[in-house]
């Protein structure tokens, strides 16, 4: 297939869901349930087409960089505004991710949303979302990116608020949209800077300009600022600290939506954006990105430990994992970051869909029992679901293992790479906090995920509702199975311990930075910067195949093009060991708490009187020590949760409140001062009229006197 054909197929892939959306939204009533099948088949076709495109791209045009199709969109005289679509390896893989998950969610929802009164509209919105998301994926310029960026925002808004009768859902959707808008504001500001400086939105043109040393306002700071502003879009969309607050609330949407949008695809758009702009990020901007990611990963993980709502745990987990990816890109572990995006998409989608399956089952059970007040999403109401819902359990288990970073899973491969990256970064730059955060989060992830798994599926049912659940039907389980299978290692690399040796790493190479050396980390600057400049144009393609070839001979199998790559390679082994340890520790603790009840999970209460226990059970010293660490961690997590709830969220609310107050004041000001001035003018005018009117007393002699007085005054002035 030629470039053109590939791009044409990509356009079809892009437009099909839109057609689905339009078709369904206009004929909602007529279509009824057929809408679901139409939507699913469209996505099925889309999936096949995207597989074809991705295969073609990766197999035959892997080194061709970004295949682009540009056209003039608006011509304002001076120079046209060009937009278009582009397809590179990154986009090709994303196409599969988006279409596959979207397809599975479509199928899943056939069952899950069966009884919803707005069933067709749900599919219409899903179509709209898929269209928008694909638009982001194959954008080759900032304008397209921003357009579709907003469109996914709106689809997310519509889907979170799908059950808009619930105030909480409506609130959540609004919160999500507005929080995102704050991020988008930065994103747009960044775009403005770039457009102002370069007069184009095209990635390749902009990067080429930067590569030539042409930077905004001739100031490295401004380039950093532009990068950070662009990244603000990612902060919003990918729910990074401090804008992460919307994501947990977004769980008010239907669970398939959570799986599709708020776990696998849309929230990953931020990561995708960060990956796209990676070449133009300066050292400071990268550091900012890395720290944001690290902080997010850590905070979210600590919070997840204490949550009890099934979906919220997953939501915090998502935030944490997104932080991971952002952090990865920030430290320069670009390929692993994107790798994690893909692997995370599978297992997190699986986890969410499994949670959907559970909730669905709980709902049914509640419906049968005539119980309406229980929270079907609270893990304290579950337990023992393993036997009732074996397939759901199994897939959930596999995904949990994957997210915890256990070997032989995709999660291990990607996470390990990221951790190696953070270590390499720490080593080269001295910023060790990032690595620390990475490992800590890894441990906590393992802990809370297993806690979730155990509480929900293991042990005995805690309520009669949980006891009477049934496995969901095939429409639900098949997607779960597909997704859980995708978490095995061999899809990505035949070596289960080294993601770097697989095809994935081969195809997704870290693009060389185009930023001038004085604004960039030394260890990111390519060894042969003269070469990279000439070809630094589009995303990942910096090195010509010939160069690559020569590198691969020099530097082992890993064609390191800068110091960082080398360090990364060397950090692999220690990172793997540490990560295995922390993950194992997490899992172990989790099991000992919740499965084997070595410690009563409610033991926190007993720890209030720790001296007695301490003296009585001396030889349990280690366990007590562990317990105190757990206590400390949980307390800290609680504190952070409170922090999140009251401070971060509080700040958000405070800003909201403040804005409202200012709005109130302005409203008042407008009504009484500005308008008051207008009315005052009128009143003063009228007042003078009133005064002059008083001269007209009706008595002729008074008139005469006044005439004479006036005439005298006039005389006085004339003389």
């Amino acid at each position, binding site marked *: 297939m030629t470039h053109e054909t590939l791009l044409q197929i990509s356009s079809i892939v892009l437009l099909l869901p839109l057609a689905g959306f339009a078709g369904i939204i206009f004929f909602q009533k007529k279509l009824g349930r057929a809408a679901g099948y139409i939507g699913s088949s469209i996505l099925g076709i889309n999936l096949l087409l995207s597989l074809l495109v991705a295969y073609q791209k990766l197999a035959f045009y892997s080194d061709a960089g970004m295949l682009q199709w540009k056209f003039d969109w608006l011509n304002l005289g001076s120079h046209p505004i060009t937009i278009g679509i582009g397809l590179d390896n990154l986009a090709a893989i994303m196409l599969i991710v988006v279409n596959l998950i979207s397809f599975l969610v479509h199928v899943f929802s056939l069952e899950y949303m069966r009884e919803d009164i707005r069933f067709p509209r749900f599919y219409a919105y899903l179509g709209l979302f898929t269209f928008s998301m694909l638009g982001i994926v194959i954008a080759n310029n900032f304008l397209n990116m921003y357009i579709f960026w907003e469109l996914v925002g709106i689809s997310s808004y519509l889907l979170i608020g799908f059950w808009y009768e619930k105030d909480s859902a409506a609130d959540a959707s609004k919160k999500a949209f507005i929080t995102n808008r704050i991020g988008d504001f930065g994103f747009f500001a960044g775009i403005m800077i770039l457009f102002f400086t370069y007069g184009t939105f095209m990635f390749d043109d902009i990067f080429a300009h930067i590569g030539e040393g042409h930077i905004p306002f001739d100031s490295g700071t401004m380039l950093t600022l532009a990068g950070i502003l662009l990244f603000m879009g990612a902060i919003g969309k990918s729910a990074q600290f401090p804008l992460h607050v919307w994501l947990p609330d977004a769980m008010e949407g239907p669970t398939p939506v959570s799986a599709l949008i708020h776990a696998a695809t849309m929230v990953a758009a931020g990561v995708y954006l960060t990956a796209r702009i990676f070449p133009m990020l300066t050292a400071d901007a990268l550091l900012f990105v890395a720290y944001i990611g690290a902080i997010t990963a850590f905070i979210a993980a600590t919070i997840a430990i204490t949550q009890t709502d099934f979906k919220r745990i997953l939501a915090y987990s998502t935030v944490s994992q997104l932080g991971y990816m952002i952090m990865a890109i920030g430290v320069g572990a670009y390929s692993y970051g994107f790798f994690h995006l893909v692997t995370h998409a599978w297992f997190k989608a699986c986890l969410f869909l499994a949670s959907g399956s559970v909730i669905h089952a709980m709902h049914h059970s509640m419906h049968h029992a005539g119980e309406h007040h229980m929270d079907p999403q609270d893990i304290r109401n579950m337990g023992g679901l393993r036997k009732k819902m074996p397939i759901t359990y199994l897939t959930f288990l596999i995904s949990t293992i994957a997210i915890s970073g256990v070997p032989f899973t995709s999660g291990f491969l990607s996470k390990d790479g990221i951790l190696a990256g953070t270590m390499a970064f720490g080593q080269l730059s001295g910023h060790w906090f990032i690595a620390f955060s990475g490992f800590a989060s890894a441990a906590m992830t393992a802990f809370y995920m297993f806690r979730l798994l155990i509480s929900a599926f293991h042990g005995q049912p805690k309520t009669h509702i949980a006891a009477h659940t049934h496995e969901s039907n095939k429409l639900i389980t098949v997607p779960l199975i597909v997704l859980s299978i995708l978490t095995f290692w061999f899809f990505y690399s035949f070596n289960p311990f080294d993601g770097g040796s697989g095809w994935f790493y081969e195809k997704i190479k870290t693009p060389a930075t185009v930023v001038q050396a004085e604004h960039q980390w030394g260890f990111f600057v390519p060894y042969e910067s003269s070469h990279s400049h000439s070809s630094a144009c589009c995303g990942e393609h910096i090195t010509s195949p010939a160069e690559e070839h020569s590198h691969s001979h020099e530097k082992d199998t890993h064609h390191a093009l800068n110091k960082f790559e080398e360090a990364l390679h060397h950090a692999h082994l220690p990172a793997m060991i540490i990560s295995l340890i922390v993950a194992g520790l997490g899992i172990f603790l989790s099991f000992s708490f919740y499965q084997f009840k070595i410690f009563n999970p409610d033991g926190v209460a007993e720890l209030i009187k720790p001296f007695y226990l301490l003296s009585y059970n001396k030889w349990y010293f280690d366990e007590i020590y562990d317990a105190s660490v757990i206590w400390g961690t949980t307390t800290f997590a609680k504190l952070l949760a409170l922090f999140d709830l009251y401070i971060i969220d509080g700040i958000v609310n405070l800003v909201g409140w403040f804005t409202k107050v200012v709005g109130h004041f302005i409203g008042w000001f407008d009504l009484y001062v500005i308008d008051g001035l207008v009315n005052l003018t009128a009143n003063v005018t009228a007042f003078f009229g009133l005064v002059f009117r008083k001269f007209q007393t*009706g*008595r002729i*002699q008074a008139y*005469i006197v006044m005439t004479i007085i006036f005439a005298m005054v006039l005389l006085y002035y004339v003389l």
Partner: protein
Amino acid sequence: MEIGLTHYLVVSALLFSLGVFGIVTRKNSILVLMGLELILNSANLNFIAFSKFKGLNIEGHIATLFVIVLAAAEVAVALAIILNIYQNYHHIDVDEINKLKE
């Protein structure tokens, strides 16, 4: 003492002032009319005096004649109006006739 132009003018000015004063202070409409007559007469006096003392043409004298005639006409009309007022109000107090105002 020779009686000159100045004396006539002073008398005329006094007459004028008295006229204005009368118009402004009298309540009775008839008295107000008399005030008006004083003003006209002061003008007449001026005309005659200027005509005589400055050796001017007879324009002044003619003017005086016209003013006298007009004064008569004016008084005739005014008295008719005052009569009508009396029929409507049963008094001719200008101060009290103040329904039209502001």
